């Protein structure tokens, strides 16, 4: 059902989700007759929750390791170049840096679970409130892009699929090709040059005007350009996937049957055909929300949007590792959560999935 070329295309642009092959949409063949429906659903949920938890543990370990692999001794940094070896040794044991790595990880993970992500070196503030503030900005931006990209992409895809070879179809293909080929950071700059510098219609940087009242109107004005920029790739992918998935579905026998029994074209497309493209769309929704959160890095940098991506770029450049760690952990956790939600949504739109195990 899922157009395989688009699966490849989507994979080429984004990383597919953290789902392993075996966790994907499974066929109903192994459904045991002894389980009730609710039983199966519960087992499916438990299975998915457990794997998500394991991936989270893995992610936290990788994040922890990345910090450890980074060059530089924290004790040396704290004490400066004049420190004596015994001072260094004392501080290392005080900070627990002389303990085995697994012990250090355990302590760090323990603190993390309790919400203590350490203090930012540059900002001299706890990491967690800063992350929360930044994440909120990123969510607003990603939400704006999602609201733009999905309805427009689905509409374009459906129109293209129902009129193969028409100008709309060709437009959808041009949009798909150009959309994935334009670097977001360039599109953003062009929009700033056009609408902000030349025309002066919309603000080109930040989230609120310094002199503004900080209201929703101000925010919306600042949101338009970055949201359009960020929406471009998802729009291209969604329209392409909707088109190919609809084309597949329209060729099916039951669509012909629906037409034969006299159903109106609106009903055939809107009810019979479109519902069966939903599985593909849910997949891409999950992938795209992940993309929007992480892909916001470039867009936020171009528009100086105070989100988590912009923060991370600066944190990496200033080697502010607690902030980098917290940011990666938060985005990765969100990502895992989205993958989980996607899998659960599958079970809602495609009853076959519930029959696994």
């Amino acid at each position, binding site marked *: 059902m899922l157009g395989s070329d688009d699966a490849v295309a989507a994979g080429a642009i984004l990383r597919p989700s953290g789902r392993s092959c075996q966790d994907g949409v499974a066929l109903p063949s192994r459904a045991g007759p002894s389980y009730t429906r609710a039983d199966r659903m519960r087992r499916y949920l438990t299975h998915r929750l457990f794997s998500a938890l394991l991936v989270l543990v893995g992610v936290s370990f990788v994040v922890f390791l990345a910090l450890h692999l980074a060059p530089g001794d924290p004790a040396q940094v704290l004490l400066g170049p004049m420190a004596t070896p015994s001072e260094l040794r004392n501080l290392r044991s005080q900070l627990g840096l002389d303990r085995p790595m697994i012990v250090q990880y355990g302590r760090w993970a323990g603190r993390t679970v309790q919400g203590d992500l350490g203090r930012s070196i540059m900002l001299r503030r706890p990491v967690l409130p800063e992350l929360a503030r930044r994440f909120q900005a990123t969510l607003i931006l990603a939400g704006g892009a999602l609201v733009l990209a999905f309805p427009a992409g689905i509409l374009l895809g459906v129109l293209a699929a129902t009129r193969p*070879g028409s100008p709309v179809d060709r437009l959808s293909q041009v949009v798909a090709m150009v959309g994935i080929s334009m670097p977001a950071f360039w599109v953003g*700059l062009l929009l700033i040059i056009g609408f902000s510098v030349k025309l002066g219609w919309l603000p080109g940087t930040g989230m609120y005007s310094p002199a503004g009242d900080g209201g929703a109107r101000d925010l919306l004005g600042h949101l338009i350009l970055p949201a359009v920029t960020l929406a471009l790739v998802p729009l291209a992918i969604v329209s392409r996937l909707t088109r190919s998935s609809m084309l597949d579905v329209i060729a099916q026998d039951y669509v012909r049957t629906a037409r034969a029994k006299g159903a109106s074209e609106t009903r055939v497309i809107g009810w019979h055909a479109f519902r069966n493209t939903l599985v593909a769309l849910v997949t891409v929704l999950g992938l795209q929300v992940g993309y929007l959160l992480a892909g916001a890095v470039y867009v936020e940098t171009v528009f100086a949007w105070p989100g988590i991506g912009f923060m991370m770029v600066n944190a990496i450049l200033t080697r502010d590792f607690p902030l980098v760690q917290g940011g990666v952990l938060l985005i990765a956790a969100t990502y895992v959560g989205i993958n989980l939600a996607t899998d659960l949504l599958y079970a809602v739109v495609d009853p076959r999935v519930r029959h696994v195990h």
Partner: protein
Amino acid sequence: MSTDATASAATTRSAPARRRRRGRAAGALIVALVALVAALAPALPLADPNRTQPSGRLAPPLSVGHPLGSDHLGRDLLSRVVWGARVSLVVGVLATLLAMLAGTAVGLVTGFYGGLTDNLAMRGIDLIMAFPYILLAMLLVAALGPGLVNAMLAGTAVGLVTGFHGGLTDNLAMRGIDLIMAFPYILLAMLLVAALGPGLVNAMLAVAVVNVSFYARGVRAAVLLLREQEFVEAARAVGSTEGRILRRHILPGIAGPILVFVSMNIGVMITESAGLSFIGLGAQPPTADWGTMLADGRQFITVAAHVAAIPGLAIFVLVLGCNLLGDGLRDALDPRLR
């Protein structure tokens, strides 16, 4: 158009097929032109891309001596765009090859030797044990220094080790790949750059490492299909060694899909490495790199928009060419994926 002649006769008449062939030809033309200009850069009558000229700062396009204008240091933009093409192409191609080699090695071997463990608990343990896989690659790079050859060694080593052991190792490698894929793409690249330090080579490595999983997955899936074919069984029956079966029977069979992956992946690699340069984690000044040029030009968009717009246009054109070519190649090589 020369590609028209090679297209299959069956599809010659349909309009979409004709358009696709036209797209493929256009893509090939763009990529060939960029590659040619990049290769000939030292021989072309261009200004030195790094020669600054404070009196001729931010010259507009079509100025005397600066066909595309000049940047904030008075450097010739045309020359920098041409030299930047070399960086983008080399980084894009090398990162793709790197990811392809390592990913293919992992995918080939895991797909071939297989090993099924659907059991939930087993998979939980696998996931925990999967860390050494990434750790190994990162540790090797960290220990040996971020050299290209070293990264290839690391990738191949991982592939070989997992390959020889099959079974459980296959599971471990796949869980490792799951783990890599659990990270948003750019985030992992950024994390790697954070650990290794900013720089062009590190950015390239990061983009390559992140993409290894993409190839490993695709190749593994292709090998899983091939493994069950009769000719593989026949080769085994006549006593071929596993190494020979892999080399002579499996590898030729997956060459097509790999080429398709590569052609579709290379544009992404170019965009991503330019993006890392743009945010300051890739190429460092004064390298003439499209991403860095765009970042430099950003400060002057109010007075000289072309300084930022032109390098971005260059990225767009090259990536569009790669994507058109990739789409066309996929259609030509893999008719099932239409």
